[in-house]
């Protein structure tokens, strides 16, 4: 079991941001991992990650098609970066890749 945090953000901030967030949660749960997902969409930051969330995470997943806002929060962390479409298409792959990053 690993602990992940993620940020999702797409261009319009209307749909893919939220689909990617749900798919990450779905497949993390299936895999027995913990995940907390921050969305940066048309409604601004939601479920914003705290410094503690980030510090405790084994790895960070960015499912983004645009720049992550306040990216300096993640300095020094292991970061997996994917596009939102990839994550929407195959959430299990995103989780598997995050484990690869950890050397699991």
């Amino acid at each position, binding site marked *: 079991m690993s602990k992940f945090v993620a940020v999702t953000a797409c261009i319009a901030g209307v749909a893919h941001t939220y689909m990617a967030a749900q798919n990450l949660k779905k497949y993390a749960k299936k895999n027995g991992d913990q995940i907390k997902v921050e969305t940066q969409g048309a409604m601004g930051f939601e479920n914003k990650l705290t410094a503690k969330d980030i510090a405790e995470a084994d790895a960070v997943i960015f499912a983004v098609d645009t720049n992550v806002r306040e990216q300096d929060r993640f300095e020094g962390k292991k970061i997996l970066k994917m596009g939102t479409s990839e994550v*929407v298409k195959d959430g299990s792959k995103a989780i598997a890749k995050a484990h690869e990053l950890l050397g699991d």
Partner: protein
Amino acid sequence: MTKKETSFISKGNIVIGLDASSKEDAITKLAAVMEENGIVSDATKFKDDVLYRESLTTTGIGNNIAIPHGKSETVNVASLVFAKTTKPLEWNSLDGSKVSIIFLMAARDKDSGKEHLKMLATVAGKLMDDDFVAQIKAENDPDKLVNIFKKLED
């Protein structure tokens, strides 16, 4: 123009048996429905904004579903139109599947209609839920579809 919607989605937002020959045709026809419903004030402008978004990456998310959307100044209120097509349409979907279920979403800038934006986000997120997708695929009665969507508002 300012038709008031008490609920996020009503029967007027649901089109069963959309007869469209292509992705562009479907978006054009559904944009016209949005103009009739007062969701957008200029269907042609909105259609152009949606097609611009389509040109960036596909909104065919797989599983025969597409969620074209546009953030446009012609949008009066963030909302969506749900449609099922009479025949499957090519959409360059992520999984290569043809599209028969369309959620056309309309949004404004970030400060307006947060509640409705929240609903769009909820609907989009639910499309990752296999049970929800099976439900909307199986149901063709607009009244029952309205009820399925209404449950998301709770």
